[in-house]
C-alpha cells in the first residue's frame, strides 16, 4: 500500500472576484522510500495541493477529496490528530529560509521545541539531537552555531537549518516546497544534493515541489507536471525527461537555459502567460499557449494512460504526430515593427 494516496483532491478559494479552482481532481500516490516531484509554473496549484493535504490552507480556502496517509484520511481527522502527524510523521520545508525562521529565537530554541513537543525529549537530549542534525546537514561547528540567531546564518545555512528541522523527528514523508529556489545556483546545487543524500540514508518518502525541472533531474523517481490546477502529465523521471508527451512538459524542458547547447540559438520559450484561473479557456487549459493546438483541443482532454504507464492529458499522440509547426515564428507574439 502506498504511504500517501490522494484521491480526487480539489482546492477552492473564495475571492472577491469569484471562486477560484486552484486544484482540480488530483489523483496520485507516494510509495514508501520514493521521491515524487511536482513541477509547474507559479499559480499551477502545486503549493496549494500540499497545503491542502497538510491542512494549512488559508482561511478562504477549502478542500475536498481524500488523502490517505497510512490508512488515515488526513482530510477527515481532527485538527488535534493532524497536529500529531504534522512535524512528526510528515514534515515540511518551506520555500523562503529567510522568513520561515523566527528571528527572535536561537536556532537551538527553534529546533528543540519540535522534538520536546513531539517526542517528549528532555532539554539536553533535545539539544544533543539538534546538534547531531545540524552536523548531518553539514553545518560546520554545530555546537557553537546552535546558540546563534538566524541573522548570523547565510541563506544557504538557513535552508540547511530548515532541512535539519524537517528531519528532526525522522518523518516518513518530507514535503519540500521549492527548497532551493531562493538560493544562489552554487548553494542550490549543494542543497539539492544534500536533500537527495539524506533521503537515501533515511529511506523516507519525499514530495519535492519546484518550477524548475532541471533541479529535480537527479534526485527524483517520478514526476507530476501540473498546469492551471490540473495534472497534465505524470511518469518516471526518465519518461518525462527523455520522452515527454505533453506539449507543456516539452516546453518546460526546452526553456531551461543550458550550458551544453550552442549559445547563438534563441532560447525556446512557451509563448504567452500562465492563465487566469478565473477565466480559463474551455477545453484544454493549455490550448492558448500550445504550438500544436487544433480544433479538437476545444474539448476537454482526458488523462490518457499510455502503453508504458505514463499518463498525459492531451489529445495529440506525440509518438505519431506529423504536425510540427516551424518553431521559428513563435517568438514574441505581439511584438510590433516600429521603433522609437
Amino acid at each position, binding site marked *: 500500500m502506498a504511504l500517501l494516496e490522494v484521491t480526487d483532491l480539489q482546492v477552492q478559494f473564495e475571492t472577491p472576484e469569484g471562486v477560484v479552482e486552484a486544484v482540480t481532481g488530483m489523483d496520485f500516490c507516494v510509495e514508501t522510500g520514493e521521491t515524487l516531484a511536482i513541477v509547474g509554473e*507559479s499559480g499551477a496549484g502545486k503549493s496549494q495541493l500540499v497545503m491542502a493535504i497538510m491542512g494549512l490552507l488559508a482561511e478562504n480556502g477549502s478542500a475536498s477529496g481524500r488523502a490517505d496517509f497510512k490508512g488515515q484520511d488526513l482530510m477527515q481527522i481532527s485538527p488535534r490528530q493532524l497536529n500529531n502527524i504534522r512535524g512528526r510523521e510528515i514534515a515540511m520545508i518551506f520555500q523562503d529560509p529567510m522568513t520561515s525562521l523566527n528571528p527572535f529565537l536561537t536556532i537551538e530554541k527553534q529546533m528543540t521545541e519540535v522534538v520536546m513537543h513531539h517526542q517528549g525529549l528532555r532539554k539536553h537530549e533535545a539539544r544533543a539531537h539538534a546538534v547531531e542534525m545540524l552536523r548531518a546537514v553539514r553545518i560546520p561547528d554545530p555546537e557553537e552555531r546552535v546558540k546563534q540567531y538566524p541573522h548570523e546564518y547565510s541563506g544557504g545555512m538557513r535552508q540547511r537549518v530548515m532541512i535539519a528541522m524537517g528531519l528532526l523527528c525522522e518523518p516518513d514523508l518530507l514535503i519540500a516546497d521549492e527548497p532551493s529556489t531562493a538560493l544562489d*545556483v552554487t548553494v*542550490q*546545487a549543494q542543497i539539492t544534493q544534500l536533500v537527495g543524500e539524506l533521503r537515501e540514508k533515511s529511506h523516507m518518502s519525499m514530495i519535492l515541489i519546484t518550477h*524548475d525541472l532541471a*533541479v529535480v*533531474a537527479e534526485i527524483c523517481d517520478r514526476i507530476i507536471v501540473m498546469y492551471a490546477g490540473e495534472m497534465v502529465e505524470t511518469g518516471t523521471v526518465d519518461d518525462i525527461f527523455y520522452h515527454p508527451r505533453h506539449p507543456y512538459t516539452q516546453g518546460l524542458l526546452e526553456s531551461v*537555459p543550458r550550458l551544453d547547447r550552442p549559445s547563438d540559438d534563441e532560447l525556446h520559450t512557451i509563448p504567452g502567460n500562465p492563465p487566469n484561473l478565473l477565466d480559463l479557456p474551455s477545453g484544454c487549459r493549455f490550448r492558448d499557449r500550445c504550438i500544436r493546438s487544433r480544433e479538437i483541443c476545444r474539448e476537454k482532454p482526458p488523462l490518457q494512460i499510455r502503453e508504458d504507464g505514463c499518463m498525459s492529458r492531451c489529445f495529440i499522440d506525440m509518438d505519431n504526430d506529423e504536425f510540427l509547426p516551424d518553431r521559428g515564428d513563435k517568438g514574441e507574439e505581439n511584438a*510590433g515593427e516600429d*521603433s522609437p
Partner: protein
Amino acid sequence: MSEPVLRVQDLAVNFISHTGGLMRRRERVLRAVNGISFELHPGETIGIVGESGSGKSTLARAILGLIQPNRGRVMWLGENLTELEEEALRQKRKEIQIVFQDPIASLNPRMTAGDIISEPLWTFYPNMARLQVEERTRGMMKMVGLLPNQINRYPHEFSGGQCQRIGIARALVLNPRLVICDEPVSALDVSIQAQIVNLLQDLQKKLGLALIFVAHDLSVVKHISDRVMVMYMGCSMEVSVRDALYHRPLHPYTSALMKSVPIPDPKLAAAARQDSWLTGDMPSPYAPPKGCIFHTRCPYKVKRCEADVPALRRMENGDWVACHRAEELDLSI
C-alpha cells in the same frame, strides 16, 4: 572597433557599518566593489555574474550614480559621471536606464501600466503633448509584447512576466543608449525567463542598445552576452569573450559556477555529480581572505595563492583573468 560608450575605471564602493554600541563604537568597512574596470561598446552586451554578495548590484547602481563610489571613474561618452552635479547626472538618466530584479515590487501598485511607462516622459519632457505621450506609450507596450489596450490596467492584473515587460518598457521609453538589467529574470518562472531574455535580445538588436546584464546564473547570460565578467566578493575574477568563457573558463571560480548549473537530463546530471563543485559559503566580507580572495574555496590552491593577490591580467587570447595559475590549469568543459 568603435569607441566604447562606457568606460568603468577602478571603481570602488565601500559600505561602512558600526558595531560595539555607543561607548565602544567601531567602524567596519565592507568593500562591496573593489577596483572594477571594464569597457562597453555601442550595441554590446556584457553579462556580470556572481553569487549574492559579490557586489554585482552595487556595481550596477554605482554606474548609474545611485550610489556614490569611493574611488574610480565612470566615463560615459567621455564624461566622468561621478563628478557631475545632481541635476546634470539626472539628465544623463535619459541615456542610461535600469530594469530591476523584482518585477512586481518595482512597479507602483496604484499606477496603471500606462502611467508607469509614461512617467519618465512627463519627468523629462513636461511640455510633451498628451496625445504624443499616449501614442509613444502604446508604441512601447506593443514593442515589449503587451497589448496596447491593457494601458489602463494595474500591475496586479498582470503576471510576473508581463510586469517585467512593463519595467522594460519604462526603461526604454526615453530611448536610452545603455540599459542596466539587474537580475531581470531571477524572480520569474523558468518558462517565462526565456521569453524575457529573448525580448531583451531582440530589442537590443532593433535599437542598438548597449546592455549590462546582471545575473547569478551563468546559463541565463549565456545567450545574451558578448562578453562576461565574473565577480567574487567585489573583485573581478575573469572577463572573457562569451564563447571562450563557456568552452574554456580561465578562473576556477568560473568553472565552479558553471558546474553548479543544474542539467535537465538525469543521466548527464548523475555523471556531473562526480565532479566536485563549490563547497562552503563565501567568507565574511568584513574579513576577506588574504592573498587571492577565492583561495579558501579553490580546489587548485597553492601556497602562493594565500599570500599574493593575483592581478587581473590579460591572457594571450585577449581575455582577462585574476589567477596565478591561469596558464597551467586546463578547465575546459
